[in-house]
């Protein structure tokens, strides 16, 4: 594998690893928001923003954390046949089928960009009383889908490396 590809895999994996390591603490952000929601509701007036803010946090958590989970190999596969194959055979099949995944991520990213630019153009706000602008969370989603796409391509290169008996 050429130095370009090696460099790509190294950089993409490193960036996504760092982001994932930060995003994993998002669980405490969600817990914090929801605990505040319980407290404010019990002792003061209910907060307007908590449920929606927790939803935004959840979206950021799983979309921005997605590339790291892909790196960790935590996405299930149906391993009826796959589980029995050798590492090389797995890599061969994956090297083809991963384009289905890449295609999906491409369509997701396209839709996200369309929707984000619409939200920016019309200044779309959420319909709640809190009325937050929708574009910031959509920008986060665009970035997350883009990083996921980069990670999937990195996985493809790793499969090619396995097929050629190299290590990246």
């Amino acid at each position, binding site marked *: 594998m050429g130095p370009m590809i090696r460099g790509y895999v190294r950089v993409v994996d490193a960036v996504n690893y760092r982001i994932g390591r930060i995003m994993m603490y998002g*669980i405490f952000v969600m*817990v914090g928001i929801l605990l505040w929601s319980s407290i404010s509701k019990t002792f003061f007036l209910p907060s307007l923003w908590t449920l929606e803010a927790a939803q935004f946090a959840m979206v950021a958590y799983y979309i921005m*954390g997605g590339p790291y989970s892909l790196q*960790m190999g935590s996405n299930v*596969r149906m391993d009826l046949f796959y589980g029995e194959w050798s590492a090389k055979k797995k890599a061969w*099949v994956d090297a083809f089928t991963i384009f289905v995944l890449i295609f999906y991520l491409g369509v997701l990213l396209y839709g996200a960009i369309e*929707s984000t630019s619409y939200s920016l153009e019309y200044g779309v706000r959420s319909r709640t009383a809190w009325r937050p602008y929708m574009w910031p969370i959509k920008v986060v989603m665009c970035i997350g889908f883009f990083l996921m796409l980069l990670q999937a391509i990195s996985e493809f290169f790793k499969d090619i490396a396995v097929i050629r008996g190299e290590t990246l």
Partner: protein
Amino acid sequence: MSYDLIALFMFSTMMLMLMTGQRVFGAIGGVAALAALALWGTGGSDIPFSASMKLMNWYPLLTLPMFIFMGYVLSESKIADDLYKMFHVWMGPVRGGLAIGTIGLMVLVSAMNGLSVAGMAIGATIALPELLKRGYDKRMVTGVIQAGSSLGILVPPSVVLVLYAMIARQPVGQLWLAGVLPGLLMASMFIAYIYIRCRIQPELGPVLPPEERRVSTREKFRLLRAGLLPLVIFATMMVPFINGWTSLVESSAIGAMAAFVAAVLKGRMNRQVFEVSVRQTLAISCMFMWIILAALGFGAVFDGLGAVQAIEGLFTEQLGLNPWMILILMQLSFLVMGTFLDDTAMLVIVAPLYVPLVAALGFDLIWYGILYTITTQIAYMTPPFGYNLFLMRAMAPPEISLRDIYSSILPFVLVMILALALIMIFPDIAMWLPNYVYGK
């Protein structure tokens, strides 16, 4: 293309993609995106993304990371050790008693988390080695742990019932309560099975050797106190929820905090436990969320292309069956689909097709939720595709082969099918408690 043909095309392409072993969310999402671009017409390319906005609106999904975190804290911090010891000491003298105790352990663990992951982890790391050491039959105990941990999604809190509630638009509180008695019924049936089997074949579950049984009564009662912990965690979470003081998602956050605080107070929260819990929560949440995202996209495309009508037509008109036969056929189709479709994906793709049908046939959707969950449990543990199977394979010690794992579940699946039949015949097993509490 006709509706039937579209339905057939989308399902078979997805099946084929899944067979290749590509990541489940990629296979499902890829087929959805392809069908959206090729068959939808103008604007189809937006459907996969708009599923992510739909997912964001499904606010009860916030409970998913909470319950996963709770499960990991419980299993990683080993605060369940004392619980196991309690059962060990109290049940040891009975034939098969340790296996029976393990079921009891699983019921308590189920009350503290919403998935089967924690039960599986606790069972495989704490109970399994102990049972094997004492000469229990490996197939029997492997089955016990898989069956027992599946109670996690039937005994409240339950993530599967939350997902079902969102799809069927039914109240989570009533669904959770409806799961209590069927969960206990099934646990009792597992216990009865173990007890009878060990009476017939004592070698499967020998009693504890006398020297191990010599425990002072004082010590015995001290251990009983360990059983309080799950009750306290369960109550911290459920009491405010049932009383309407906190909402569902708020309660799940309280539960996650309660588990965390319990681990800290017991001095079990170290760097390692913290790291694994936080990291694995992200990993497992992402796994679920991305599948749900892809499956929601698939569902919308499938629906918008008219394929849902084809499925409904098939069941209600073309086959010409009575409501009960349709219901049974649907349950069977879940089991068949469970062989090639991931459990979460099955919930998000297939349940929306069936729920309106079930309602139209005049069945109660809360009751059906319980039938549905038990069927899901069976799917969770039957090969080749089962979340519990995956976990068992990953966690079991090397002397337990894939064959052992596969064959261990058979008797328990039969028991579960029996329980399913009982709840179908006597709906009150599920409905009595919610009706009593919510006073209908």
